[in-house]
């Protein structure tokens, strides 16, 4: 099949089926000499060179020597991956879009969880008042509320992470957008979730601390 790239004829010998990505830029696999004929004239026509060290030579050693001898950046696959992620987050709208979505999710999650817990507390004020009257300290009630919040939160965390992981596997297998799920990400989500649980519980704890047990007689 003959096609044209930037008004230059090109013979297409194969079409690669690759993983989807966030950027919808078409990728052409060809030789460097042909590639620079297809792209418009620019000051720089080479972004990076993909290299593989000889067997038995450590990648870190090769990148260090390339940097020393050329003054250019040389990275391992993992370093380059994170550098790319950093660049995309900083220089494209993806970072802002995803960051806003996550922030909104955090705020909405906190508001809903807080409201739900607060309503639960208000609905059961007489029971809490009865417990206080029977000699339960505010500290014990606070521990009860925190235990409930963390139990519900951690159950939701397990279910949520599980579903997200299954979704990720199925999506990647069907050629959809893949995503990575590192332990750092799981830890960050856990910390955020515990923050939401603590905040939600705190609203109820303040209510209970101010609760007069005499409410049970009204």
């Amino acid at each position, binding site marked *: 099949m003959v096609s044209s790239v930037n008004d230059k004829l090109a013979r297409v010998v194969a079409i690669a089926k690759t993983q989807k990505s966030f950027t919808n830029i078409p990728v052409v696999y060809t030789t460097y000499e042909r590639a620079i004929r297809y792209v418009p004239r620019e000051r720089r026509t080479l972004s990076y060179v993909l290299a593989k060290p000889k067997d038995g030579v450590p990648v870190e050693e090769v990148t260090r020597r390339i940097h020393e001898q050329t003054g250019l950046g040389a990275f391992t696959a993992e370093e380059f991956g994170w550098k790319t992620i950093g660049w995309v987050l900083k220089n494209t709208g993806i970072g802002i879009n995803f960051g806003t979505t996550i922030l909104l999710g955090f705020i909405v999650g906190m508001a809903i969880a807080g409201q739900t817990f607060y309503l639960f507390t208000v609905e059961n004020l*007489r*029971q809490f*008042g*009865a*417990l*206080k*009257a*029977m*000699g*339960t*300290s505010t500290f*014990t009630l606070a521990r009860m509320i925190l235990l409930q919040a963390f139990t519900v939160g951690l159950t939701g965390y397990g279910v949520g992470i599980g579903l997200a992981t299954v979704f990720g596997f199925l999506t990647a297998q069907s050629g959809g957008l893949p995503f990575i799920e590192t332990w750092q990400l799981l830890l960050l989500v856990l910390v955020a979730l515990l923050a939401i649980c603590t905040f939600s519980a705190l609203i109820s704890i303040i209510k209970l601390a101010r609760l*007069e*047990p*005499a409410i*049970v*007689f*009204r």
Partner: protein
Amino acid sequence: MMDSQAQPAAVRARGIVKSFGTGDTKVTVLRGIDLDIYLGEMLLLVGESGGGKTTLLSAIAGILDIDDGNIDVLGVPLGELPAGKRTTFRGQTMGFIYQQFNLLPALTAAENVAVPLLIQKIGRPEALRRARAMLDRVGLSDRAEFLPKNLSVGQQQRVAIARALVNEPRLLICDEPTAALDGPNGQKIMELLREVGRSPDRCVVVVTHDSRIFHFGDRLARLTDGRIVSIEPIAREGTA
């Protein structure tokens, strides 16, 4: 009737004053109450709605701060106890029976009865053993594993009585214990309360406006407009 007044006063209230609100909306509910309640007796606090019965009950229980006066319970001045110690004291010495029972809906009858013991840090197996024994005393041993929603209102109040008595409190505080019950059930509950609740080393205070249960008490204190207007022994067959 026991010769309760030969005993020392378990509750000694002097000059109790309590108001709610401020400025033009300030309402004085208790206006200098003096009251002694003795070990071994069941005192009924009666009077019109809004007369201050429940407020006085809350003050005696130490769950409502008063504006003026002193309340000693079993020789301990409640006003001088810090909030935390007052809560602990309440848990160790008082039992409560409420108009609406206030059972915890997710717990079984036995677990509800065990709550005061668990609050006192008694181990769960021992607390449940004592709770089941107390349920047996109120005739509900076959309902120990039932949730409150599966019990009749009379049975729920019996569970509440068992809960109030399980830690053997020396002061039993009852707020309208028959208000949510029909006549026969109310009579049964008061009979039960008199049978298992009364003890020579315990006093029982019952707030009620139900004249059908007055005869269960030993003394009757009438509150009107924040003042005790009379305290009378209740005549009972063979004792009057």
